[in-house]
């Protein structure tokens, strides 16, 4: 009887081409899942500070209806002369506002507001 064939390949796939196709398929599934989850499954999104800075103004309040492109808030960033304005990327309703003017916020940690986005849009 012959010796069992040793597997010394660096991939679980038959060839590099199979691995490439699997990577494309895997990414398609991941990206489609994210888009469906964000557009149809979660009811609202918690918007955290996209970068560290100081809140200059919050242009919305709890219960406000916003349209895509409306100003939400502005942040003063370190080393920048002008405050950076952040606009709504989708229409929806503001469920709560946590940040106040003069608050120092940390990137990805402090919540600015919670937005209930229109179903089928990408918040």
């Amino acid at each position, binding site marked *: 009887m012959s010796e069992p064939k040793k597997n010394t390949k*660096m991939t679980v796939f038959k060839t*590099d081409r199979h691995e*490439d196709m699997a*990577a494309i398929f895997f990414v398609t599934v991941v990206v489609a899942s*994210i888009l469906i989850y964000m557009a149809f499954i979660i009811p609202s999104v918690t918007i955290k500070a996209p970068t560290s800075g100081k809140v200059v103004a919050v242009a919305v309040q709890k219960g406000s209806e916003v349209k895509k492109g409306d100003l939400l808030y502005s942040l003063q960033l370190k080393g920048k002369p002008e405050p950076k304005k952040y606009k709504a990327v989708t229409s929806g309703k503001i469920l709560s506002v946590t940040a106040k003017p003069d608050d120092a916020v940390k990137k990805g940690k402090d919540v600015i507001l919670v937005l209930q986005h229109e179903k089928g849009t990408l*918040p």
Partner: protein
Amino acid sequence: MEEKQGMAKVLAIIPGLAFMILTLFVLRTYVEPWMENVVVMGQKGWLVKVLSLNYILLSILTGMFYRNVIFGGKIPDWAAEGFRTTRLFIKSGVIMLGSLYTIQGLLKVGGIAITLIFSFVFGTILFVIWFGGRNKMDRSLIGVMAASCGVCGVSAAVATTPAVRAKPADVALAIATILGFGIFTMFISPAIGHLLHLSDYQFGAWVGTGILNSGQVLATCLAYNPDIAPGTAVAYGEIWNVVRVISIPFVVFFITLWYWRSEAQAEHISLVKIIKEKFPLFIFGFLGMTALSSFGMLGAEGSETIHLMRQVMSWIFGLGLVGQGAYIDIRELKAAGGAPLKVGLAAGAIKYVLALVVVLLFVAKEANF
């Protein structure tokens, strides 16, 4: 380990993959936050700020630790199939990085990237052919060495092997030499970049040109700036990396022609056939993501959708890099020596330094896209 088939193969992947996921989870949830707060040399977060020890480099170091210390030099059978998913995750991450660009932006920077990459790739190949010849290296070994130094440590060396009739030992030697050099540059490049105050664009261009392995380019860029977004080091470095990967079939063709130039077989070498067989298909996935991003189908820049996508992307990279670390066998690196080591190190070092000089002299601080 015996090669498994079907469902048994899928089940065999689970233990190793679960181990990689658990490792990354511990690194990102506990180790990295601890390192951000711990005081070393009188400075809070010194390990992260000065040594660039974020989850990316930690993933590679932990993978190396597993392979060389815990596993005693060989990935055990129970984990081997799971660790073989490493390249799948790195390729998937590269495809997802396509979402950082628009078609217009890619075309703008692509021209500079193509010029730099093709000059450096073919310049390095010519150097290895000349220097290898001077050092009386075997022509087959020169062929794989030229491919691995010129374009990509592993993929190109493996792709060139049959064409230049290289022995497995030649391939292992070439890969060990160039990967060893790459690991060294991966750890020193972020510090050099900070010292020279390189912008993310310059750093990405330098590393994308000077470092020879996709995983190492990604890791080095993310160590320099862990953000995954347009305008960051990884976004720029990846354009260079993609152009380099695209050049692989051309490199294989060129080296094959050189190897067979005095033989009758040279007449039967076809570039079209080599492109058909060797072109990396996952690049089409990358371009597909760029097309979706250009048409705004992945959400607006700054949206929570994009934020989530980049979070997922960073986990996919992290997984790939734990595996990448586990494929670094220190004993194999020690095997590199003699003329191939001399030629490989000379080619790698010249390319690395020259790429830095060219970037400092000719690449603007900011990209115009």
